[in-house]
């Protein structure tokens, strides 16, 4: 006979969980026993954020301990804690209420309350089970890359009304990208996006504003003497310049294409860039 009462279904749903919630709770110090059993912990981008554009993309797989509480094959699993700042958390919490959950359990406290109960906003992680879903690592990694580049809004859709699309190449990388400069508000935004697209390109030397400090000659020369990559661009006149030599809005206007090259190759462009900066200040 069919017992179609809600509690019966609930029983099915809950009894079959391998009690990972408790185990996770033990591991992290959070008592998660009462929480939503879909493995997306509150604020961790699990129930809210991450899916759309809140979190920082990428894969953060944490291996759950098995029923015995011990870890599985840690050599084969990346252990990453998806730590986010308080601001991001609040962002995510706004999204929580919009998400549908398949089984609405009135007994379960909403995500926000749980966070308040636990009171530990810094420590949470999104947990995933090893080897689930059964997608090969190669494919999973490829997809993780793609999800993060989507955050960069590098969508090459057919309708691009007024955008400033420029081709971006990086020395040594086998393929080009296109970016729409109007999608970014500053050099920092652009360099973050480039960093995601070309993973060996780092912004280490760019400082807080995301701009090369052209006024500091020695720092500039250090950068250009190193094997670090720097972005350069071709302007309206066909000249190749170092990115960052002009205010952002001017840059968007005049940039025709971008090329990321080794600092040592860009060294010839430095004097002109510094001149431009000096003449403006």
């Amino acid at each position, binding site marked *: 006979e069919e017992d179609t009462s*809600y509690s019966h279904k609930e029983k099915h749903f809950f009894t079959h969980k391998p009690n990972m919630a408790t185990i996770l709770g033990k591991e992290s110090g959070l008592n998660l026993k009462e929480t939503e059993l879909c493995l997306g912990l509150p604020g961790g981008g699990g129930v809210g954020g991450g*899916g759309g554009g809140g979190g920082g993309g990428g894969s953060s797989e944490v291996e759950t301990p098995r029923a015995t509480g011990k870890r599985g094959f840690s050599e084969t699993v990346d252990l990453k804690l998806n730590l986010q700042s308080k601001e991001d958390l609040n962002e995510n919490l706004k999204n929580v209420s919009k998400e549908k959950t398949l089984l609405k359990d009135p007994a379960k406290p909403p995500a926000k309350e749980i966070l308040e109960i636990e009171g530990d906003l810094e420590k949470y992680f999104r947990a995933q089970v090893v*080897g689930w879903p059964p*997608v*090969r690592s190669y494919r999973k990694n490829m997809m993780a890359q793609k999800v993060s580049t989507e955050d960069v809004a590098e969508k*090459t859709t057919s309708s691009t009304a007024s955008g400033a699309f420029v081709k971006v190449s990086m020395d040594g990388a*086998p*393929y080009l990208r296109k970016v729409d400069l109007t999608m970014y508000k500053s050099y920092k935004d652009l360099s973050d996006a480039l960093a995601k697209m070309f993973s060996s390109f780092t912004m280490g030397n760019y400082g807080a504003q995301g701009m090369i400090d052209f006024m500091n000659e020695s720092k500039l020369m250090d950068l250009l003497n190193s094997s670090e990559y720097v972005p350069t661009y071709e302007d309206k006149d066909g000249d190749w310049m170092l990115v960052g030599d002009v205010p952002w809005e001017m840059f968007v206007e005049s940039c025709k294409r971008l090329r990321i090259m080794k600092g040592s190759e860009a060294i010839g462009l430095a004097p002109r860039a510094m001149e431009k900066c000096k003449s403006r200040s």
Partner: protein
Amino acid sequence: MEGQAPSPLPDQVLENVLETVLHFLSSRRDRNAASLVCKSWYRAEALTRSELFIGNCYAVSPRRATARFPRVRSLTIKGKPRFADFDLMPLNWGAHFTPWAQALAQSYPSLRRLHLKRMSLTDRDLTLLSLSFPHFQDLLLTCCEAFTTTGLAAIAANCRLLRVLDLAECVVEVADEEVDWISSFPETQEETHLESLVFDCVECPVNFQALERLVARSPSLRKLRLNRYVSMSQLHRLMHRAPQLTHLGTGSFSASELDPEPDYASAFAASKSLVCLSGFREIWPDYLPAIYPACANLTSLNFSYADINAHQLKSVIRHCHKLQTFWVLDSISDEGLQAVAETCKDLRELRVFPVNTREEIEGPVSEVGFEAISRGCRKLQSILFFCQRMTNAAVVAMSNNCPDLVVFRLCIIGQYRPDPETLEPMDEGFGAIVMNCKKLTRLAVSGLLTDRAFGYIGTYGKLIRTLSVAFAGDTDLGLKYVLEGCPNLQKLEIRDSPFGDGALRSGLHHFYNMRFLWMSSCKLTRQACQEVARRLPHLVLEVINSEEGKADDIEILYMYRSLDRPRDDAPKVVTILH
């Protein structure tokens, strides 16, 4: 009559006749049956078997295999079980090819073809292969690992008659020295014998000039699958060198030069024999129109690395009337699936992979697209479908619309997910599949499932050979139904399900008929496994625990039949019970 050789004995004549006749038997099942008739048939069959298939490298030792079948020209060996692909097995678990390489080098000088799946083979193994078989033609490696581009270079350099070099989903390390394996194909050979060169999984750049020259001097080349380090314009050049290609893997499908680009569509138009397209590893959707000229002839299209949306897909798929095999990402959404259903009336195989494997998201594909496919593609034989949401009704619909299904693999990403409309378990949907799809041999289940679902499988799944189960079932009964009800079951992989010792015992009558049983994170105890090992001496029970010397709980049981003693190459985390 003097000086004439004595006429052959009647037995000898019979044996010769037998060999001549058996020579024509190709199916290994037929051959296995023939070998059981009597001793002379056994001998004759053994002498005439030229294609040897070994489904589990540990089921038989290399020595035994080569001793029984001395005249093998084509060999297939499979190693690790499929769940190893998902990081469920320890590194260095086994499936080492080296002992086989040595045995083959000794016993099979005429070896022509080798196909390895989920084996671990080293550069030394590859080098040995390349030097040991003067007639070697075909090397196919699927999901293999532990070798580098150095090994590939040895094959390229030494196998003069090489016809097929297919690397599918392998993990190829880059060698320390800057050896470009493509350049190792001897340039002195005016024409190569290459018919198939597949290296899309090799994660390092190749010397393009060498590749272009290789393609130019390979007039028999029909299959070429490039890796993602080959750009669009390079692809263009290669296509012009080889307009006779039937199977093309397009590499990155993305630009690498800043200058204006050639007319890619013309290259696709010129390749009139193309029937299979894949690649699109870094796809730049602006380039999609280039493939339009080829679409009408395509029977196989693999977009499973291209996250295109419904609109982009539609522009392509509406030309693909002959499509039979289609692999794609769920980024095309239900709308994209509907477009496929409208055009691809001949579709036999569909695989939909997830871009985002998180379970709590809405997910772009669902029962809507699934059901649309079932209505539009009535000839469907094989489906692999990942989704965050599925209803019983849609699965039942597919069971009715697609009675030819042989492979049904549905992966609802969220564990223990019931039908979102009815909140019922997914029992009825899968039940309908096993009931209505009478040719079904492979089944993978998911979602909230009770013992009832397994009851259906045991009752109706009489032809099922492979069954995959995860996070399902209530009690031992579930597994019992399957082990008692499915006489053709050969491969059973179960994880995170509450099946225990009683269930295991219920399969004792059948385990010798199976290739393997995998059970991880279930409820087995060591004692029960020990008991099975005692009662069935030709079974090898590998107990794998993440920590050595674990007492009673079994994390992983990997069990298989074997004619020889248990292996001695297991890592410490593996305990072999006997």
